[in-house]
């Protein structure tokens, strides 16, 4: 049963990612991205990362995807047919992407990765919280500053000049 669910999630992720980059209607791409992000959240759950899966749902699906849909709606005349778009140089791009995939697969299958057994933790939130406020405190503060900067920057950029 778990096996079936696992392969279902993997298939859904990969197929909808294909739709994201290949479909010529932007809004369908965005909807396919929703399924990809859901699938990635499912993969996180299979990898015992419950907190990251929750953050993925909240930030990616609740935040970034909504932003992207807003962007599509604001930059296209919805009533006209210009919502579609075409891809350019698909041959060269496809060849490059396949070559890249073959290269990565070769590296992945040839490298003897470090592995170590572990028991499934009950939850990961406590460990992540402790690490964030001890070892990674400086990075944590830096990234909160970066978020503030990005927020102000986005507001300044999208404001009408007068």
């Amino acid at each position, binding site marked *: 049963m778990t096996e079936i669910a696992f392969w279902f999630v993997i298939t859904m992720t990969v197929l909808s990612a294909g739709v994201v980059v290949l479909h010529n209607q932007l809004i369908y791409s965005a909807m396919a991205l929703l399924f990809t992000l859901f699938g990635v959240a499912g993969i996180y759950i299979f990898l015992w990362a419950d907190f990251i899966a929750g953050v993925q749902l909240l930030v990616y699906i609740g935040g970034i995807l909504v932003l992207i849909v807003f962007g599509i709606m604001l930059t296209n005349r919805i009533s006209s047919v210009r919502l579609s778009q075409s891809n350019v140089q698909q041959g060269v791009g496809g060849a490059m992407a396949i070559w890249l*995939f073959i290269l990565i697969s070769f590296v992945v299958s040839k490298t003897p990765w470090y592995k170590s057994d572990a028991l499934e933790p009950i939850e990961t939130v406590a460990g992540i919280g402790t690490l964030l406020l001890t070892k990674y405190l400086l990075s944590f503060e830096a990234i909160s500053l970066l978020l503030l900067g990005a927020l102000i920057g986005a507001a300044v950029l999208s404001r009408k000049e007068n």
Partner: protein
Amino acid sequence: MYELNTYLFVAAILFSLGVFGVMTRRNGIAVLMGVELILNAANINFVAFSRFGGMNLEGHIFALFVIVLAAAEAAVALAIVINIYNNFNSINVDEASALKE
């Protein structure tokens, strides 16, 4: 299902698709979606290595930071895309060749 390589292959497929999208899409927002795919692929790798390397939570911290960076990047990029749309009346990245009018 309990193999590290399965996850790495899935991440490699997502990464290649993302690179394909970034290289071939003309629409700025579609390029952004390709970037999101690439970031997700990197995140799967971080979490997979964390899980199979003895449940080391530092991979999760990196994945969190990547998600936060993706949020900041999406906000700024969409502001830029909307500015490009106001200036050029289209968001095709090959037509936006000037920094200002």
